[in-house]
Every structure is written in C-alpha cells, then in structure tokens.
C-alpha cells in the first residue's frame, strides 16, 4: 500500500471514525454530567426511539409527504429559475427594470411568508410546495443569470461569424455555458427546498416530518425528536448528493467534474 493510495482513500476510514468518536463524546458527556433526558438523551435512547418510529408505517408516510413537497417545490424552482434567469440574462433592460424587485424579494425573510401561503393555499402540502419553491428559486435564477453572462467573448464572436440567430446562440452557446452555474444554484436550491418544506410543516398542517418534530416536542418525547432530526438530516444528505452527482452526467466536460475524478 503506497502513500498515494492512502491519501486518496484515507477519508473512508477517518470520516466514520470521527463520527463514532463524536457519538462517544456525546454519550460520555450525558453520563458524566447527568444531563436530563428531556434536554439531551443518550445516543442509544435516540437509536431505540428511531427504530420504534421506523416500525410505524405512519413515519414513512410523513417522510414521503416531506419528500414530495421538497421535490415538487425544487422542480418548480428549477423550471422557473432557468427560464427567468435566461430571460433576465439576455434582456439587459428587463434585468435593470426588475433588479430592485429581485433584490427586495431576496433580502425579505421569506420564511415570514409561510402564514400567508397557508391562508392562500391551505394547510395541505400545496402551501409547503410553494414555500420550498420560493426559497429554492433565487439561487437557481441568480446563478443562471451569472452563467448566461459568463459566455466567453471569443465564443460569442464565433457565433456572430457563423451568422447564428438569437435562439441558436441561446441553445448552442449560452445555455450550455450557463449549465455548470445552474447546477451550482441547484445544489444550494435543493437544501433550501428541504428547509422550506419543513418550516411550512412546522407552522401549519398535520403531515410531514416537520409536523412530526413539532408533535414530539408537544409530547415531551425528546428521544423521538432527535430521531426525526436524524431522519431529516438523512433526507437532506441524500437529496443534496443526488443533485451534486448530476454534474457527472450533465456536464462531464466541465473542470469541476475533472477535478473530482483525480
């Protein structure tokens, strides 16, 4: 086993080791300082609560709801973000006109809109889908604008010399140039979509993992609450890696993909 091999694959050992060490520290802390299980349960108790929760088919139902809200919101955000981003990136006067509104919407704490969305769209999943979409939309749109504007001068000139039309330039040059940027926006967007769905569930309705977290809090069932948080983290993890690994398939030519290979 040479040094290079170790350097490349060491993370497969060090990361799980660190994880186990952190769990052990957590356990030792609770035992040593006799922390109340209502404040911080022991890892073993959380694990047991999680197993019990997973045996209940309703848990999976809640997880599906949250997953659906996140993905639907994310899908809307991607579609609207790319179309609007391309439009604003291409049409300078439109971007100048709308820029103050975009900034205003961006600095507004959008989570404060949840009660409004519940009034508008009801306590069902729709209001959460909208919240997820609103949060995920901005990074995707702003990155698309940046990408469209990042077209190399030489590439643009080539298209002019080839007498390409506006649509041809958009399809053959500007959108492919923007694609790596759009994917970066989507990586941020998927995380925000999860947050949007969960915050929506906290504040209204009776479904989803966010609602479960609130329900366990009301029942003083802190072990289960930790279990729900664990499930949410796992879901966020999986969704993020799913989106991040799209890079390899959508932009295999890009440097970012090359870098991760070596």
């Amino acid at each position, binding site marked *: 086993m040479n040094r290079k091999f170790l350097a490349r694959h060491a993370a497969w050992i060090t990361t799980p080791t660190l994880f186990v060490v952190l769990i052990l520290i957590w356990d030792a802390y609770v035992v040593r300082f006799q922390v109340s299980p209502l404040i911080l349960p022991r890892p073993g108790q959380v694990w047991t609560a999680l197993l019990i929760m997973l045996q209940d088919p309703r848990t999976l139902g809640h997880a599906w709801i949250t997953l659906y809200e996140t993905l639907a919101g994310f899908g809307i955000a991607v579609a609207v973000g790319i179309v609007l981003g391309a439009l604003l990136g291409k049409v300078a006067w439109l971007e100048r006109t709308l820029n103050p509104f975009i900034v205003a919407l961006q600095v507004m704490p959008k989570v404060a809109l949840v009660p409004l969305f519940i009034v508008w769209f009801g306590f069902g999943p729709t209001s959460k889908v909208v919240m997820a979409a609103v949060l995920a939309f901005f990074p995707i749109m702003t990155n698309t604008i940046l990408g469209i504007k990042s077209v190399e001068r030489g590439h643009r*000139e080539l298209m002019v*010399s080839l007498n*390409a039309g506006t649509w041809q330039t958009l399809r053959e040059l500007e959108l492919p140039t923007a*694609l790596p940027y759009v994917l970066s926006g989507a990586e941020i967007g998927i995380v925000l979509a999860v947050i949007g769905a969960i915050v929506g569930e906290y504040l209204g309705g009776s479904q989803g993992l966010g609602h479960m977290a609130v329900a366990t809090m009301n029942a003083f069932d802190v072990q289960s609450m930790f279990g729900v948080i664990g499930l949410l983290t796992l879901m966020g993890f999986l969704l993020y890696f799913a989106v991040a690994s799209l890079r390899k398939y959508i932009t295999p*030519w*890009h440097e970012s993909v090359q870098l991760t290979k070596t």
Partner: protein
Amino acid sequence: MTQTHIALTGIEQKFGKGANAVIALTGVDLQVGHEEFLVLLGPSGCGKTTLLRIIAGLVRPTSGEVRIGDRDLWVGEARDNAVVQELGVVFQDANLFPWLNVEDNIALPLKLRGRSKVERRERARELCRLVGIDGFEKRWPRELSGGMRQRAAIARALSYDPKILLMDEPFGALDAMTRDQMNLELQRIWMASGCTVVLVTHSIGEAAFLADRVVLLSPRPGRIDHILDIDLPRPRDLYVQTTPGFQDVVAQLRHRLDAAIA
C-alpha cells in the same frame, strides 16, 4: 492577379467619438484575387486585425465599401446573409466549445444550417482527415494539444465550404516548431480546398512562407504601406526558408517594416 474576389474601397475605421476618437485605419483600398493567399503583415497597432474583422463583417467600417464577389457585404444596417455564408473565420484562439466533442464542434456550422446528423458526422470525418486529426472525432477539446485544437478550428471553418477563409494569427499561440508544421499544413489545405485566404500575422517569416502577396501595414493611423508579390514556387517546403530568394523577400519586408515603425 486573377478575377477580384474581395474588394475594399476607401475603408476608414474610427473608434470612439469626438476629440477622443482614434483612427484605426484610413484610406485602405485593396483587391484580393480568387484563390489568392494574401497576408496582412504589420506591427501591433497597425490595424491589421481590424481590417480582417471588417472583411469578416464583425466590424462595420466607419466609411468605405466592402464587396465580396459582386455583392456588398453590408445591406443597410445588416450583413448580407448570402455573403456571410461564403466567409469562414479562424481566430487566434480555437474557440472550440468545451461541451461538444471534436466532431460536433467541427460540424457546429452545419447544425446551425439545419443539416442532418448523418451528413454532419460524415462531413466532420472527412474534414478531420483533411486537417490531420482523424481518430480524435470523439474526444473532448481539452484532450487535444494547442496545434490540434487549431486544426479542428480550421476544419470547422471549412465545414460549410466557404469561398473565403479569414485567419487572425491562427498559430500565434503555438510554439515555433508546431507553427512551422501548421504553416506547411495550411498551405496544403489551402491548395486542396481552392479557397481565397486572408491571413493576419506579425511574423515576417510566416508571411513570406505562406503568401502570394504580402500587404504591409503601418501604424498611427493604420494604412497600407506597401504590397509585395512573392513568386516562390509552390508547394513550398520548409527548406525554402534557406533559399536566397526567400531570404531576399524577408530582408525586403524587414526593411519596409523598420521604416514603417520608425
């Protein structure tokens, strides 16, 4: 000289307005014959690239007339499509799109013209053979050396059978040895394709090796200083550079150039 292919009359180019205006070119009258290899030579700032861009229709001259064959390049504010179709441009950078493989890059102009996939692939293979990069059709541009990328750029410019090839220091970014080889190849490709070529360079040796005629430009303001016929027999090989005839041409160009800068 054979029949006139490109005719420039009274070309003047100003950049900027009012007191800050810079005259890049003034009083340029030039005719290029069918199937001629014409080289624009001059020190930096002499307007040789601007002149090439004017012929390519990438820059609209402040005043003067550009005629290709028996048509004007500009009709009102727009370029005449039928004329632009006959122009192939090769830039100093290859400007290959990183998201297209070599074959798709070469066939991009055909795609813009709505040709079928089968036809595009066939033409790309043929051109790869012509420019000497066969076997690399499916590679990404970044997997190619600088010289090979420039070959692909030439193949792309030839893909739609332009009657005129316009080249702006196409080998300027290559090392001297690759450059010699590319000039030899360019001569071969030009003789095989029957194009009219206008090439911009600041290398005297390159100009003398390639050209039927060298147009010497002088700076501030850019204008034609001198036109020199080069009667060395074709095809020329790299050893032509050691002959007295070649060295005489180089010496003449060197003297005129020094006089122009002084």
